[in-house]
């Protein structure tokens, strides 16, 4: 991980006049998808890079130790060994970036990864995920317990009430406290953008989250009606860039929710490269929150290596 973002004082003046023009953002999003593409070996290499940025995620009511166990092993072996070998990539340490689970499953995941001999971090969602409609005390306590259980990354979710009622100071204070509760664990701040009402609010919430010391800002819980869309991503990475220009601190970005295809993953990588530069193409500053994305990437890699389209049974499920 790169140096952590220490955050700054809350500077509302710098964001109060910002207006995001939605039609212009949407046109830009269409253009990014149309104007850039990678083919052949470049596509395979980019997809492998995407794999290393995945927070392989399960956030379901029916999660149990057994599917957490499977998930962790898939995180360790995201692409079939022989496929990697064909590209001479088998010894390059290709794993996903992390596994991401509910707080109650952190211990299971830590145990499974240890058994697999895998040092990737466990990320836990926290703070009343996904709605954040619990008391601040509970939300803070949840972070502390997840960290005690071995989570090295905490995906906190912000209090949308504070955004929609314009209480930016309150939001800043809450996130500050979350950051303190995280201790050494890296903090990703989920903005739940689908519930913020406007792209301008997305921008402002991004800036406040970074001022409050987030290591990452993340689009969605995956539970909102609208999740990681490219226009939202554009607005958030512009905020990341503005924060970097202003403070010199690099904050990571994590789109999550609804990212299912290899093509989606490439589009997000293109967005990072175009808007923030190559530094933001590595797992310390870029993550993809996803559960089914990996299997599509593996299918594409299979096709790239063998020239055939894979059957369901050709690739091990997570």
């Amino acid at each position, binding site marked *: 991980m790169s140096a952590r973002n220490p955050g700054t004082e809350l500077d509302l003046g710098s964001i109060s006049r910002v207006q*995001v023009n939605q039609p212009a953002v949407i046109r830009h999003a269409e253009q990014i998808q149309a*104007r*850039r*593409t*990678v083919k052949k070996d470049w596509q395979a290499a980019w997809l492998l*890079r995407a794999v290393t940025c995945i927070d392989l995620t399960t956030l379901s009511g029916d999660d149990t130790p057994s599917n957490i166990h499977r998930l962790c092993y898939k995180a360790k072996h995201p692409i079939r060994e022989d496929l990697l070998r064909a590209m*001479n990539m088998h010894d390059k340490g290709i794993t996903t970036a992390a596994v991401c689970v509910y707080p109650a499953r952190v211990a299971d995941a830590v145990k499974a990864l240890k058994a697999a001999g895998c040092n990737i971090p466990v990320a836990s969602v926290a703070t009343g995920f996904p709605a954040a409609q619990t008391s601040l005390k509970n939300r803070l306590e949840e972070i502390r317990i997840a960290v005690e259980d071995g989570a090295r990354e905490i995906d906190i979710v912000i209090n949308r009430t504070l955004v929609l009622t314009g209480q930016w100071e309150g939001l800043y204070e809450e996130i500050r406290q979350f950051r303190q509760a995280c201790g050494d664990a890296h903090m990703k701040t989920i903005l739940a953008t689908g519930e*913020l009402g406007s792209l301008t609010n997305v921008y402002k919430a991004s800036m406040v989250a970074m001022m409050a010391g987030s290591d990452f800002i993340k689009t969605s819980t995956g539970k909102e009606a*609208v999740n990681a869309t490219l226009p939202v991503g554009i607005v958030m990475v512009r905020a990341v860039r503005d924060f970097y220009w202003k403070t010199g601190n690099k904050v990571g970005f994590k789109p999550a929710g609804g990212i299912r295809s290899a093509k989606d993953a490439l589009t997000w990588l293109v967005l990072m*490269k175009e808007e923030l530069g190559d530094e933001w193409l590595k797992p310390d500053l870029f993550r993809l929150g996803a559960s089914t994305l990996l299997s599509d990437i593996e299918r594409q890699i299979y096709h790239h290596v063998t020239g055939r389209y894979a059957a369901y049974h050709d690739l091990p499920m997570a």
Partner: protein
Amino acid sequence: MAGAAGGRPSVWGIYSSMEYGPAPEGAGPAQAWLETHGRSFGHFVDGKWLKPEGRETASSTNPATGELLATTLQGAPEDVEAAVQAAAKAFEAWSRLPCHARARHLHNMARTIQKHQRLLALLESLDTGKPIGEARDRDLPLVVRHFYHHTGWAQLMGTEMGGWKPLGEYLAQRVRFPRPVLELCACLWNTVVLLPPPRARLSALLLAELGAQAGLPPGVLNVLTGEGALAGGLAAHPGVDAVALAGSVEVGRSLRRATAGRGPRLSLQLGGDTLAIVFDSADLDGAAVGLSNAVSCQRGPAPGAGALLLVQEAVAGALLQRLRARLGKLRVGDPLDKAMDGGALADEAQRGAIEAYVEEARAEGAEIFQAWAALPARGPFYPPTMITGVATTSRCVREEILGPVLVVLSFRTAKEAVALGNNRPSGLAASVWTENLPLAMEVAQSLHVGTVWINGQNLFDAAAGVGGTKESGNGWDGGKEGLYEYVRPSWQSRPRPGPAELDYKTFAASSGAAPPPVPGHSGVARPELEENMPRVDRTYKLYYGGAQKRPEGMASLPVLDPAGNVLAYVADGSAKDIRNAVEAAHKAAPGWGKRAAHARAQVLYYVAENLELRREEVASRLGALTGAPPKEAQREVDLALERLFHWAAFCDKSGGAVQETPLHGTTLQLRQPLGVVGVACPDERPLLSFLSLLAPAVARGNAVVMVPSSRYPLPALDLCQIFDTSDVPGGVVNIVTGNRDHLSRTLAQHQDVHAMWYFGSPQGSQFVEWASAGNLKRTWVSHGAPRRWEDPAQGAGEEFLYQATQCKNIWIPMGEIFAN
């Protein structure tokens, strides 16, 4: 597979660097098409290939690689003749087809193009160096859209364009794809000879072949290839009824002069880089994206042109920081690569020309930012470039740079932004960036351009025309506004004045004053005596700025009655009087143009009311002047009154429309005043024609400088008192009497007159057209053909409304609602 084999990076290498790789589009289909023609093309005339012997050939090459694609012919005058004859022959049957049949033809053309989109895009990219993505994703869909849109117009022409008919035979000479094609759709009411630009011939030839495949009758669409010089011969050909050109301002001027007085309609779309204005209330990132697109995109309103950016001083630093970041990310290179933002320049000469502007700016102390990293090592490419720290006096600001160059000026206030934006001769398109709605709309209204994009850039659709103002010419493509380029009023036949040898230097250079009878002559009228008291002398003066003025030259001209006796003297106006009148008109025009439509109508009704009061007197004076019997004179006054009502009625009924483009938002068409219009009135029906011309111009918000009939100036002058007492603001109507051609000469040459209407001799018409090349003002001339002013079709048709306004399309995207 480990490591790089033959320079090709390994997966590990790419994984580590995360560079973009090549993404070439296979040129196979285009090469195959070229092969089937043996890479050698003739003209496409009368539905088949025409390859006359003995012509020189020209090579079409891929500008990015120099690879020879094919050879085409350098047309000769005989070829022009063959093409014009084929088109003329085809026009007879084509123009008689029912609307629905022409609609089917256009529809089939659209379908055929749609089937071969990929081929057309590839060929265009190969031949011109334009990125394939742009050709494929933007140009071709727009072309197809234009054909479908105009299929609709072809179907509806009978009902929606009643009172108009096709012109005849059309010459389209256009600079770059897709322009020639867009042009075609609408002008396909006529038959067409297309002369593609020398450096982009192949897609036009393919299109002609597709047209034949789609079943267009032979001769409806003909394509000639040749050097630009061929255009001169074509334009001057008596069989050509209209000429459309998209090209440089200089070519436009020379074509204007070459066709002056010959009668063909001229539709010019000239040069004109994009203007962008960014306010401190803008989404700066949105603006930076839009501007970097404008710089890289070869398909702005003027293909390949750069842009002038005006940025509010308070946010200049923040915007330029974003622009540098973005321009640095643009990719320029192999046009057939799907992931390129910019392709190849036409040739080294173009690069040299761009370089000259940039180096001159550098020498002036400007700061130059260039994204060299984007560039391939070899080939005719130029990096995206931004020039800051220049002033309005710099050549790179005044002139248009054909290349990926953004020139930046800063401004302090919105008023200054508009002033700077309008302080340039071109007027094609502008983008306005602000989140402040009242500001955006006010600036959009105030800019003298044909298209305004609010918080956007380079939005196009067939339903909204593209055209310009000032030196960008006044030709329009697309929308209903574009249709008027291709039609003439049903009652009118094409004027065919004999091409006169006119000495432009001396024509009407003086008023040629003092024809007899002069003082001392026996026919001179003296003040009548009434009971031994002389009547008080009546002196007619000039009328401008809302007051009666004596002429600068202090000279008078006699006005004769039908018997040849002097009825009165009127002022012999001169160039200086015209100058003063134009100045007065300019003072009044902005306020009058902004006056509420209802208020303008009220003024015209008031004029009618006061004219009615003096109906008998005006009629009797008219009779005394022209010799018309009392009944006839009465009728002329009554018709004039009706004309005033007619145009007063139109004050609040033709201000524009909503264009049905695919934009999520509104595309607003405004029909705005031209500004200051010079009007030279005919001798026939002196009162009726004077008011028939004045009323529509004034109703639509223009200020006019009227030159009444030299022979019958009195009815116009009699109206001055009526204007004075009818709340017509001073300067809106100005009247200068004298020698019509002499005064028209000054008006046509005046750089700050926006349009010139001339109803007089063929020679005067020719001069007006020739002189209008100076500022490329709009002209409307009679070529000496009289009209029946009492006929509503001829004296008050839609033509008047069209001539009295100019279009502006404002694109207003919407959208803020998001998710929950």
